[in-house]
């Protein structure tokens, strides 16, 4: 039976006895992450999905143009059309100073991004360990969970006045509100992630001689990662929501401020520009998280690819 295998094994044994390292059979090389991504893009271009997406976008744009600038339908008569928006956005001499060539546009973008970075980072750095710890120690969860359940349903907008009272200046209060929004989502999703781990992995790890700290680093953390990253995606979306709300009420820069200011000063094209910019930034930040998730969770990437 299995002649070849037998021969190979005997060969390996004799090599091992001679004290030389048995040569491992040539393993097929694992595809690199970018290779997987590239092949996935190539595959996607062979399906109809990307083309349908483009057609969908273009027809929406067409409908938007027809409604606002050609037919001037009721409800849409005050909405600036794509031509009006584009002629502000891509102009060297924008009427309201907001175009891709004006420094002030980027100043608003950067103000918002910087607040998101600070708030989101803080929420992640505090929320993930807290969630992990709540999932790890039942007693700690029993202490903290009811508090979370009471605080979480309070809409973030309701925090804004209190935040302004608490913190000196607008900057800190806007960041605080953004942080709060992200923090609850991150913590609770991390907790959910720990609780979703199958008991059998804990048992297996204990069988193999794990102490509690091994359980934490080898089972709880990696086991909760998929939920943590789902949580971070939601939390990122929620951060933008809270940020814009905060900026509309307080602040001197930022896209939320820009939108509110454009509304007050009848600069309708600016309003649309700021909204679309927010759309792009939200999409981009979400993609960034997905990228990190793929890096950290190779086992899931390979599962899909394989």
């Amino acid at each position, binding site marked *: *039976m*299995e002649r070849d*295998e*037998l021969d190979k*094994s*005997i060969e*390996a*044994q004799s090599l*091992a*006895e001679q004290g030389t390292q*048995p040569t*491992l*059979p040539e*393993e097929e090389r*694992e595809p690199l992450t970018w290779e997987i991504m590239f092949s996935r893009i190539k595959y996607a271009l062979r399906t109809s999905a990307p083309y349908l997406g483009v057609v969908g976008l273009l027809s929406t744009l067409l409908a938007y143009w027809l409604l606002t600038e050609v037919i001037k339908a009721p409800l849409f008569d005050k909405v600036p059309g794509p031509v009006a928006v584009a002629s502000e956005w891509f102009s060297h001499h924008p009427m309201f100073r907001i175009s891709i060539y004006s420094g002030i546009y980027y100043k608003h973008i950067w103000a918002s991004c910087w607040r998101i970075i600070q708030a989101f980072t803080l929420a992640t750095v505090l929320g993930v360990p807290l969630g992990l710890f709540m999932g790890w120690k039942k007693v700690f969860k029993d202490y903290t969970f009811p508090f979370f359940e009471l605080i979480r349903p309070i809409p973030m907008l309701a925090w804004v006045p209190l935040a302004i009272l608490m913190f000196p200046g607008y900057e800190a209060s806007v960041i605080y509100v953004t942080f709060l929004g992200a923090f609850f989502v991150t913590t609770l999703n991390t907790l959910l992630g720990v609780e979703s781990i*199958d008991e*059998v*992995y804990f*048992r*297996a*790890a*204990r*069988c*193999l*001689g*794990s*102490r509690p700290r*091994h359980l934490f680093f*080898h*089972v709880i953390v*990696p*086991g909760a*990662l998929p939920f943590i990253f789902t949580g971070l995606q939601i939390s990122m979306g929620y951060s933008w929501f809270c940020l814009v709300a905060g900026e509309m009420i307080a602040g001197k820069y930022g896209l939320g401020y820009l939108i509110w200011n454009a509304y007050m000063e009848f600069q309708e094209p600016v309003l649309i520009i700021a909204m679309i910019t927010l759309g792009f930034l939200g999409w981009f930040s979400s993609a960034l998280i997905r990228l990190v998730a793929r890096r950290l*969770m*190779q*086992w*899931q990437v*390979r*599962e899909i690819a*394989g």
Partner: protein
Amino acid sequence: MILSQILGGKGGALAKKAAISSEATAGKISIRDVSIVYDPEGARVVAVDGCSLEIPAGEFCVIVGPSGCGKTTLLNAIAGFHGVSSGEIYMDDQLLCSPEMTTEPGADRIVVFQNGALFPWKTVLDNVTFGPLIQGRMTRKEAREAGHELLLQMGLSGISHRYPSEISGGMRRRVEIARAMMNDPKVLLLDEPFRAMDALTKTVIQKYLLDVYDASNKTVFFITHDLEEAIFLGTRVIVVTSRPAQVKKVINIEIPRPRDFRVLSSEYYRHLKEETLEAVHEEAQKAFEAGEREMA
């Protein structure tokens, strides 16, 4: 056969490095009048009742009984996942559990689970080296070398850098057995490990387990409700009653080792199967009727 050549040679390279010894000197399990009751204050579900069983070191002991009869409960008690309500369990005359105490699970008695428990976030090699690394028995380099060697000997070297999700169910089960063997356990506890497998994969992996057993002579505590599997693998088949579990019948399987599939068509095998079936069928019937009453 292959493995026995590689693993079995006393003082062979692998036996030293991966700590697999071929003599069964340890791993005697002694279950003395054990009862296990769930929810003793309330529903009082008696899972195991007055069960006594001696498993000598190095025996392949198969437990057969109807579904939900308390076999797994008994295995969990040996593993240290939960305690007993009365009686004691000893391993090599060292008390594992009694109503007063339960010894924490440890690498001396490793469980291979029904649905598999390889860590999906670790590669095959990292899974296999996990035990020795966290116990601090080997350095990272030593563990990787020993792990590579063990995987090579067990015919799994080509997949050492793959994740469990990338390999077949049969392969995963082999890796899990390898992961257990890396720790040189005294006892292997297998809880219906091949249940979810198709018949063809099952025959391959049963033979594989037999090779590992023949080479290492570990004590094996194997739960199944597949009679063919029980007779093909076991040195003794213990038929237990429907819940609460008690030993109903002990059948000695005197088929010489190493075994292969030819025994499955022998007259002796057929006779054993009939004998086992008779004992099990009665219990299955009881369990079935009890189930019906519970439903009604």
